[in-house]
């Protein structure tokens, strides 16, 4: 399968790429890892007249710890994050990176591309929303920083202007006694998840002081389960509170029935995943090392 013909442009800096996008107009698209865009182009669902390739721009693939912030270059591949020391320092990020699609896709797909694509079934946004995450953006006009919860506005839609690119993703390390977990269920490795949950807890004296819970693949954008968070805040994490939070998440989910399952099935899936994820997050908050990743047959 071939995409429609297009003209190829290679940028040597993000600012140059943004300028090119502005000059080429609305028929131009940026090419990051290409693991969503190229399949869409082959199916001719996307037919850009121009592609601006970001893959030859230097110094856009990095993971830098500066103080209590972890900075991700926009072209950092999922596999680089999977194989980084974040596995122990920020395990929720490893949960996400290590389970996206398969080895081959993780070697190409990028964190910046995933966040900018805002696919309702994408993994990164759901994970990063439970952390304090900022998206830095660049255009010929300058730079700006947008909190992730204000960045994605709808399915496949962000606040990025057509001539604007993600230049960095900054994640604040959670305070001590925190633990997080991202769990997604998919039918097999290469496909999108059927449902996913991300949890971040801060514990103090055996009680949950703070909770952030987002649900993935069950809404047009990641769904914040505030009622589920409320069931945990101020409580100890025990089977009773976990079940209450899972029931609240079941109601918060707004899934569409599709080939991955009925709406009811996805609500049940969200509840089941959340029970496991809260348990893992609480154990991690206690300093336990727990390894989890996407679940598939």
């Amino acid at each position, binding site marked *: 399968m071939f995409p429609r*013909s297009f003209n*190829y442009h290679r940028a040597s800096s993000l600012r140059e790429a943004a300028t090119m996008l502005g000059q080429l107009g609305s028929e131009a698209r940026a090419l990051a890892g290409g693991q969503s865009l*190229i399949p869409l182009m082959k199916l001719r669902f996307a037919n850009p007249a121009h592609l601006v390739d970001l893959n030859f721009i230097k110094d856009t693939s990095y993971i830098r710890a500066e103080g209590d912030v972890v900075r991700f270059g926009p072209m950092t591949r999922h596999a680089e994050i999977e194989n980084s020391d974040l596995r122990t320092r920020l395990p929720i990020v490893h949960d996400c990176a290590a389970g996206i*699609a*398969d*080895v*081959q896709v993780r*070697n190409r797909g990028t964190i910046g591309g995933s966040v900018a694509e805002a696919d309702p079934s994408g993994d990164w946004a759901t994970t990063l929303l439970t952390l304090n995450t900022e998206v830095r953006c660049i255009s010929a006009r300058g730079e700006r920083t947008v909190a992730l919860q204000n960045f994605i506005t709808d399915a496949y839609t962000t606040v990025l202007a057509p001539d604007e690119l993600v230049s960095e993703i900054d994640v604040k390390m959670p305070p001590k006694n925190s633990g997080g977990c991202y769990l997604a269920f998919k039918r*097999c490795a290469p496909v999108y998840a059927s449902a996913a949950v991300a949890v971040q807890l801060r514990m103090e004296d055996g009680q949950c002081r703070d909770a952030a819970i987002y649900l993935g693949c069950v809404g047009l954008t990641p769904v914040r389960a505030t009622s589920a968070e409320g069931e945990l805040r101020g409580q100890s994490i025990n089977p009773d509170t976990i079940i209450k939070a899972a029931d609240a998440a079941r109601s918060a989910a707004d899934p569409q029935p599709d080939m991955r399952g009925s709406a009811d099935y996805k609500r049940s899936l969200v509840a089941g995943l959340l029970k496991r994820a809260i348990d893992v997050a609480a154990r991690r908050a206690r300093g336990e090392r727990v390894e989890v990743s996407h679940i598939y047959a």
Partner: protein
Amino acid sequence: MPEVQRVPIKVKVNGKSYELAVEPRMLLVEMIREDLDLTGTHIGCDTTYCGACTVLFNGLPVKSCTMFAVQADGAEITTVEGLEKDGHLHPLQEAFVNQHGLQCGYCTPGMLMSGAYLLSKHPHPSEQEIRKGIAGNTCRCTGYQNIFKAIETAAKG
């Protein structure tokens, strides 16, 4: 008809250097098969699912149906033809033969590339590592059991 853009690229495939002028929409797998006549790399699903088109791109497995040839400018690529050395099959290829790791053979080039990469990273992989290592490669014949056995056998040397 508007003039079709052709982009000059330099690429090294299985140690041999090539200079080509490619149309931007040409997929990497098409360049490998049609321009370089290396037909060992297969096109299976053509939708980033099955992994039959897996090649090593600068040492890392990628699905060559989901990259443009023009993106390979300056890259080193290894295809299944590049696994044998001096007329000797790669140990994993030998193991696939001995353990009956294939039936129809369609997925085999991709399985070999993912398997060879896995073994280069984890010379003694656990069963879980093998399963995760070839999770991006689909086989519709074998049920995977003999493919696991072949990778385990190659790991034992």
